[in-house]
């Protein structure tokens, strides 16, 4: 079936190239094309890798937290060696390329929130993020405002996300870098007693593992907040 357009294409402004081409973009494309032509990998390899990397979401991190909440021994393993414990939920930071794709060679640390300590992560240098467990970072995580301000005024920034802490709670900001990635393990909320790991994982949303939110028993981030 052919759909007809109800608007005039001429009304669209032509997409203009920006003021000059980025030489590194040119370099990237040239290297990629030459590598493909020489048979080092295929265009399909590249497309599949890009599609896979961009499709990773935060479900791996949610599984880690949910499992830690119900299994104290796993919790201890996760805090002691995040990279190794990830394998128990099917995430191998060394697979498939041997160096922690798609975030490259790295150490992975899980930061446990307590009633008196709240952790939050940032990357002041660029946009380092624990992609194998959380997927792609949100837009705001990469903004200069978040990166610059969180390390200087963390309580102010967290308040803008709706998180308010009194003086009895220590706020710790963890700055990711080329070699070290962090993830927050939020506290299990009230009202979740007897829940399965699957139920628990559903409420451990991306933002709770960055540290700008806390999980709630009635919020899963899988449907619109106004839907219910």
């Amino acid at each position, binding site marked *: 079936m052919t759909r007809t357009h109800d608007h005039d294409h001429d009304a669209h402004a032509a997409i203009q*190239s920006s003021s000059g*081409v*980025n*030489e*590194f*973009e*040119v*370099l*990237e*494309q*040239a*290297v*990629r*094309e*030459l*590598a493909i032509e*020489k048979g*080092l*990998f295929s265009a399909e*390899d*590249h497309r599949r*890798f*890009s599609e896979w*990397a*961009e499709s990773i979401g935060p479900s791996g991190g949610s599984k880690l937290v949910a499992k830690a909440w119900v299994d104290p021994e796993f919790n201890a393993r996760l805090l002691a060696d995040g990279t190794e414990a990830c394998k128990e939920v099917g995430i191998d930071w060394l697979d*498939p*390329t*041997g*160096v*922690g*794709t*798609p975030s*490259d*060679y790295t150490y992975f640390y899980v930061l446990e929130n307590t009633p008196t300590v709240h952790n939050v992560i940032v990357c*002041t*240098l*660029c*946009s380092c993020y624990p992609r194998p467990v959380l997927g792609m970072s949100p837009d705001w995580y*990469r*903004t*200069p405002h978040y*990166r*610059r301000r969180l390390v200087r005024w963390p309580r102010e920034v967290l308040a803008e996300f709706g998180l308010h802490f009194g003086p009895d709670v220590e706020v710790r900001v963890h700055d990711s870098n*080329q070699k070290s990635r962090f993830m927050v393990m939020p506290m299990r909320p009230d009202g979740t007693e007897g829940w399965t790991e699957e139920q628990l994982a559903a409420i451990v949303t991306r933002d709770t593992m960055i540290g700008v939110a806390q999980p709630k028993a009635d919020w899963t981030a899988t449907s619109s907040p106004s839907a219910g």
Partner: protein
Amino acid sequence: MGSTPYRILLDALDPGAPAETDLPELDHTPDPWESSMQATCECLSWRGTLDNLDRRHAEDALGETLYHDFPVHTRPAVVTAHELLDRGVITEEELRARMDAVRARLTRQ
């Protein structure tokens, strides 16, 4: 890892670009080409041409020496190209020619 930089790669850096500061990249928002470069690096490692860990070590070493004026986010592209040139996988001439061709395609009106 070669001990001299490649002219074709040095030419990629805009001479008017601001130098790195104490907090480099603070105002940098990743561009789409950086994700594509990441995938290229992963494919090169996956298929056995350039191991990711070797590349990261090269990024650290070359990024602080031969290409120290380059922004951190450009290191994967610059160092991957440098390593492929060093290993004779590509030549400087064909890289220059391909960059000219790509640039012409991207700027064609």
